[in-house]
């Protein structure tokens, strides 16, 4: 097989695996974190229902903060998917 083609295939294969890991592990962390936070919210809301509106506002705020690293990871993964800088070595 043409060595350049072989290099291209290798880079793309490993980049694909890398993208999968980035998105998968990021989603794992984000979902577990959000699950823990929401379970605490439900517990707190059951204990003191009168605080539920304020707690709910805080829940949405924390949801965005917890999702941050995951979304940054997705952004980076998209960069590798569509504008892979690692391909520059063979072009």
């Amino acid at each position, binding site marked *: 097989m043409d060595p350049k083609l072989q290099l291209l295939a290798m880079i793309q294969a490993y980049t694909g695996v890398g993208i999968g890991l980035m998105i998968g592990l990021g989603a794992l962390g984000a979902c577990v974190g959000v699950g823990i936070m929401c379970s605490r919210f439900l517990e707190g809301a059951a204990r003191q229902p009168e605080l539920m509106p304020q707690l709910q506002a805080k829940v949405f705020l924390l949801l965005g903060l917890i999702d941050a690293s995951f*979304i940054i990871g997705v952004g980076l993964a998209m960069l590798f998917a569509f504008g892979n800088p690692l391909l520059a070595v063979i072009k």
Partner: protein
Amino acid sequence: MAAATELTPTSYIQHHLTFLTKTSEAGGFWQVNVDTVLTSVILGVFAFGFLWMVTRRATAGVPSKTQAFVELLIDFVNEQVKGIFQGELKTVAPLALTVFVWVLFMNAMDFLPVDVMALFYEHVLHQPNWRGVPTADVNTTFALALSVFALMIFYNIKVKGVGGWVHELFCAPFGGNPLLWPFNLLFNAVEYLSKPLSHSLRLYGNMYAGEIIFLLLGLWAATGIVGTVVGGILHLGWSIFHILIVALQAYIFMMLTIVYVAMAHEHH
């Protein structure tokens, strides 16, 4: 879509992700994403012009619906600021309102369908590349976050004085012992560096990922009737979720702005 290149999935996505960049003679770093700058300025003029016009004709009697709406907005921001910041509202609340309204409008540009807007930009404005969502450009979010960072440092120096601030940088979490100075400085440096980074990249990542997913879902339409229908349904689902994300990210950006500026006012 440009007629020059062949329409493959990658070229479609890459066309939609290309900014309208103008490079000055200095080259390299000194580029301007004209589409981002123009869209954000126009949105700012539109949003704040509307707010200004409503407040100009404000009455103390029975308010009109638009005045009631603007009052709701200002009350909302004041509530958030009061919950976090125990100083005077005059310094932080207008900043929070500005950030919230502007980021909300810039994010809301993502509601406009990508391909419809691409037709508009190509045939009405005659630009080959134009990205309509300013906050999907890392430059915009970094500009906002770095401005908040500069304000953070300004308020730190204003409230504590230069000497007090430097003392806090060297002695803050662990104590005043000269042996601990490098660790204190390192800790504070990491904290100071991570704030604008996470502030900007969170907003950028959410908007950029949203756009990419819109584009990827749109690609399903190229596979035939079934692909178009299924892609359309998923597109609808993602759009509804994205409404939440747009508002939520604007709210989070505002809250973090308030928190960072409030933390800069604290003494130890």
